[in-house]
């Protein structure tokens, strides 16, 4: 499984490097969302953890869903997904590789997102930002796992991207709430031990989404 995972990830990263649009779309959409929210909140939002955390997670979900959909749809070009399904790879390996690829793209864009957040919401470059990293990584993993699983089905449909958002957003709500609560607390100066419950919720949701994807991908992919 590990060898297959490595080949698939290498292929995905090569494709992304050669004009893939996933990271670009993630960054552009995140920037747009942050700009709009920064204007909407006005100058008084500067330094308010709740506003910054809300904006961060709205940007994550609004950019993450279309980007994941794009990543999954890339496998349907030329029916490449059928080539993978016909290969000796287990379907679960294909799923895990796709989640890892999407998750990695999200992690890269989250780094850019954090920088933009500091800029637009007048935050300090301090350890609070570092404490956000595990929260954001857990959130990205959950979103990648969920959107890859659902995107596998919806990307073959005409209104697939919209359908993906309709299906994934409600399922992602528990992670969204936990993520915003944890991020708000951390940006307000709390340590990670103070946000253990939201972190546990994030980890539990991730586990649930990844397990469901691991088991169901075989039946959802063509």
């Amino acid at each position, binding site marked *: 499984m590990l060898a297959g995972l490595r080949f698939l990830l290498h292929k995905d990263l090569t494709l992304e490097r050669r004009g893939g649009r996933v990271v670009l779309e993630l960054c552009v959409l995140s920037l747009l969302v942050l700009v709009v929210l920064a204007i909407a909140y006005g100058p008084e939002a500067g330094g308010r953890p709740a506003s910054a955390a809300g904006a961060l997670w709205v940007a994550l979900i609004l950019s993450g869903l279309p980007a994941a959909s794009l990543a999954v749809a890339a496998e349907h070009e030329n029916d490449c997904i059928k080539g993978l399904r016909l290969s*000796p790879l287990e379907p679960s390996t294909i799923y895990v590789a796709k989640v890892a690829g999407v998750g990695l793209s999200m992690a890269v864009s989250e780094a850019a997102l954090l920088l933009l957040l500091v800029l637009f919401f007048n935050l300090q470059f301090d350890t609070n930002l570092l404490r956000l990293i595990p929260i954001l990584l857990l959130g990205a993993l959950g979103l990648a796992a969920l959107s890859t699983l659902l995107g596998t089905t919806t990307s073959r449909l005409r209104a697939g991207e919209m359908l993906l958002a309709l299906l994934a957003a409600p399922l992602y709500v528990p992670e969204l709430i936990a993520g915003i609560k944890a991020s708000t607390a951390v940006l307000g100066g709390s340590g990670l031990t103070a946000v253990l419950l939201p972190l546990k919720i994030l980890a539990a949701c991730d586990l649930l989404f990844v397990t469901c994807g691991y088991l169901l991908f075989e039946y959802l992919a063509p």
Partner: protein
Amino acid sequence: MNIALAEALNLSVMFGLRSVLAEVNLRLERGHLALITGANGAGKSTLVHALCGLIGPSAGQVRMFGQDVRRLQAQDRRRVGVMLHRSMLYRNLTPRENLEFYAKLNGCERASEDAARWLERMGLSAVGDQRARELSRGMEQRLAIARALIGEPELILFDEPFASLDPQGTALVVDLLQERLARGAAVLVTSHETVALKDAEMESYRLNSGRLLPAGAEANRRIVWRWMLS
């Protein structure tokens, strides 16, 4: 009696209420070629999809290497080479990278050498490092055939392999298939035209509205060497 590498037993496929394949029975044995002809929409592609397990049967069964095709183990999937209507190639990878990628997935230990060998065999060495999206349709078809054969499969399922190929390309593919047949592979080829392989044990079928009928001895005698005529 030879052992069938693949067989369809009363295979029926329905898309909604429309019957696409109806009670198809087919055996693919070592060293044998099954040529399936039929008009557009006759169900040839659906048959290949069902045989390789990409479409589940509405009724009946597809068995490969003695097992249900949908429960095929990884080591058995490695023994099957499939070419479908679309090339299954990554357009932003080069032909070399595409072949190396699929060779690695198939467990080839010398993927780079295999890829180089197949590029040369298919006459694609000169374009081996261009992006696949820059290839002509015929070149893409040659690459798709190399992709399907790079794992040295024992069972070959080709959907319209001669489409978009020039006479040299057709002759090349015919040679490749003859070579595989001589080594004991079982081959299924669908085509809207008839084509023949020298010295091959060939069975011709005609797919008509989802029903598979033997083309008959008379039809076999009338089969032409397409590339010789052209």
